[in-house]
């Protein structure tokens, strides 16, 4: 069965996040970037932002990368938020819809961060149920992104990549493999990034994210912070090459959300990713499900 992720998946080339400071220039100059990605939460209340998204959508495929559904919260999904997402999906027709393996809401409070989950059978059941509800409401499959982590819960019993694999198996969702998040999580929790990559079922990886991170020294230990505020670090490009070897060429999105540079800088990062994708295509050999 081939999952329906939305109308026309993007090409296996590098896209960029559509950021507010770039909108004017992008709409004026129409750079040849193959697709754009946005946080749907920024457009749910309409306004001028939605108007410019619709203008961009006329010329570019747009994918939705949600941050507000809180799929890992123990309670019910926020139906009002899900309905707002559906309204926006129907209006914009994104080529992909993704969300996070995390939680943000508890007791009616939205905590504005992708908070960590214990990887247990209980959490698996909760997240799978929410993914199924979302997929039924939207009428399409979604992608789940691996989080960047700064802690591990003592009572987790399932390794994170196996947890993601099981979610994909139970719900038919796809995976958004954030290579920077794997790198950051592996560093912060003492994991092996290659072992992590090897544990992801290759056919389920539908999109890849790359981004920059920051180094933060606390207690004379270095913690990496996933701040999407700089160029992709060299070891993350290396890990990205490893990912492409395993998954083949996959649509790749360059994220840069803080200390946003000139549009040309972001486009140059996408070019670097395109070069690596081209090399992966040239190597060929890896058969992927269409």
């Amino acid at each position, binding site marked *: 069965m081939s999952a329906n992720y939305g109308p026309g998946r993007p090409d296996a080339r590098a896209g960029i996040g559509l950021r507010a400071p770039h909108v004017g220039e992008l709409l004026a100059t129409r750079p040849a970037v193959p697709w754009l990605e946005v946080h749907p*939460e920024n457009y*749910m209340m*309409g*306004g001028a932002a939605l108007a410019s998204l619709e203008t961009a959508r006329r010329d570019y495929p747009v994918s939705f990368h949600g941050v507000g559904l809180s799929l890992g*919260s123990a309670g019910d999904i926020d139906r009002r938020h899900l309905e707002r997402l559906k309204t926006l999906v129907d209006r914009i027709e994104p080529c992909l819809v993704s969300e996070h393996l995390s939680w943000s809401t508890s007791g*009616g409070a939205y*905590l*504005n961060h992708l908070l960590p989950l214990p990887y247990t059978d209980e959490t698996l059941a909760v997240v799978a149920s929410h993914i199924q509800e979302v997929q039924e409401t939207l009428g399409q499959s979604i992608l789940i992104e691996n989080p960047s982590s*700064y*802690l591990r819960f003592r009572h987790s019993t399932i390794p994170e990549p196996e947890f993601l694999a099981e979610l994909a198996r139970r719900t038919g969702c796809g995976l958004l493999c954030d290579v920077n998040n794997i790198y950051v999580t592996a560093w912060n929790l003492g994991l092996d990034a290659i072992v992590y990559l090897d544990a992801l079922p290759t056919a389920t990886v539908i999109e890849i994210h790359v981004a920059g991170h920051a180094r933060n020294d606390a207690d004379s230990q270095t913690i990496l912070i996933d701040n999407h505020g700089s160029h992709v670090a060299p070891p993350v490009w290396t890990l990205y090459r490893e990912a492409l070897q395993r998954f083949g060429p996959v649509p790749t999105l360059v994220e840069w959300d803080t200390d946003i540079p000139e549009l040309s800088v972001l486009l140059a990062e996408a070019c670097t990713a395109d070069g690596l994708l081209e090399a992966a295509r040239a190597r060929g050999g890896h058969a992927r499900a269409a």
Partner: protein
Amino acid sequence: MLALHDLQRVFKGGLLADDEETVLAHIAGDGLDPRARLAIYRHHVLTTLTATLESAFPVVCQLVDKRFFAYAADAFIRDHPPAGACLVEYGAIFSEFLEGFPPCQGHPYLPDMARLEWAVHQAAQVAEVRPLDRARFDAIPLDDLPALRFSMDPTLSYVSSPWPVDKIWRAHQDGAEPAELLDLSAGGACLEVRGVADGVSVRVLDPAAYALRHALAVGVMLEEAAGEALAVDPSFDLIGAIHQLLQDQTFTDFTRAT
């Protein structure tokens, strides 16, 4: 083992209430103090929500300076975290919070400034406003007009204050002349806030016009709204004011009260 619901509740307590001992017991150290690990999440939540409030209340932030604003925002966020993920909606009760925030007691104009800024913030969110069907309105017999209730341009809101918050607000907009020390005894204002083509307008209304428009905006019947305006000023030109409302394209719809 803690159920997921309870873990998330104590994690929230660890982030917002500094009540961390319970949740810390469930966090592995892995070579770093679990306290430091939790602090990374707390720092992100508080700084990003503070930034959200700064962008909704830039003038309040400038009036009290960033450090004080962050102190007030920290208290607000811990007591009133967002109710949903669309953060343009976050901050509606910040003015009420400032009213009751003891360090703000010496600055009684701040809550009204926050009220004005929230009205400006909300006005900027709406892009499309459907105009009134004039033909349908013009077909209403004059005798039926008093019983009408109106829907107004959704970007409209009304703020009145005993303080000159409009003058203070204007003095902090881009391109404003640097203000000499603003005279807080300069008197208050009745303000109409509205989204316009290139931003938001803040307009001073005379008190009777304010009474009329504000009453209509909360859905009061025209007859009753007119009564409120005339109570403020018995010589109020009601007909002229209604013509002005139509000319300003203030209404988007109407219903007849039954």
